């Protein structure tokens, strides 16, 4: 089974709102060895001008993951998850993610390429806050290995 080339340009509905919890930010920060007080301590975060603890840059992957799950579950996409390898990843921020944010994500497939037996699927996930303001765009490329 190969990836459906017609996926290019396809968008999925917004993901349900993800409420960023303070303890989740701390848990994620510990997991990526983030020790900045601004990641852990609300007082330090407020002193730096934020409303609550700031998530490490790669925390946005948690929200991206929800959007990618829609793509991987799409029967028309033809993506075999057991053959997927993460190729590259980028996060472009308008502002950092902060505890208390309610984030929704909309994924659009930007390209589908076939190279040899493999396919590469690239997608942009636009993450917005509760007022619809842009927070971060997460760009991910997935390599789908072909049959051996």
């Amino acid at each position: 089974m190969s990836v459906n080339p017609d996926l290019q340009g396809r968008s999925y509905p917004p993901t349900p709102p993800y409420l960023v919890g303070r303890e989740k930010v701390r848990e994620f920060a510990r997991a990526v060895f983030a020790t900045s007080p601004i990641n852990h301590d609300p007082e330090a975060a407020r002193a730096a001008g934020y409303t609550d603890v700031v998530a490490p840059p790669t925390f946005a992957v948690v929200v991206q993951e929800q959007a990618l799950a829609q793509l991987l579950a799409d029967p028309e996409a033809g993506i075999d998850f057991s053959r997927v390898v993460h190729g590259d990843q980028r996060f472009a921020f308008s502002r950092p993610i902060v505890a208390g944010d309610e984030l929704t994500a909309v994924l659009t497939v930007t390209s589908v390429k076939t190279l040899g037996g493999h396919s590469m699927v690239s997608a942009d996930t636009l993450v917005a806050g509760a007022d619809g303001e842009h927070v971060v765009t997460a760009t991910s490329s997935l390599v789908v290995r072909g049959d051996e």
Partner: protein
Amino acid sequence: MSAPTLSTLTVGDVVAEAEFALSRDALVRYAGASGDFNPIHYRDDVATSVGLPGVLAHGMLTMGFAVQPVVDWLGDPGRVVDYQVRFTRPVLVDPEEGAVVTVIGKVGRIDDEGARIDLTVSFDGQTVLGKAQAVVRLDA
């Protein structure tokens, strides 16, 4: 802690340097925190069944900690405005020895609003991330 300023920077400066000792526990911790429960990151039998030499660190874990020395230099995680990597080689995490990953961050470019920090992330003498770049916002 006050943030570094643009005027003190020169292209080529090493601004961040760190070493991360990964254990299998760190991978399980990241799996729980991120929700990525792919068993190739904690089960040798599953990893070897799909042709891998053993359990690998999540690429996103490596991406996650590789920027931390830059955050420490900045003093504020909110100053990272763009961050990208390419996953080029896996980090194999031995059940007993773990894995040591080193990170070096150099100033690659400077403009009016900030700088691009280029990261060299290595394990076992080889780089594991390609085009690892963090764009950071700095005051003049």
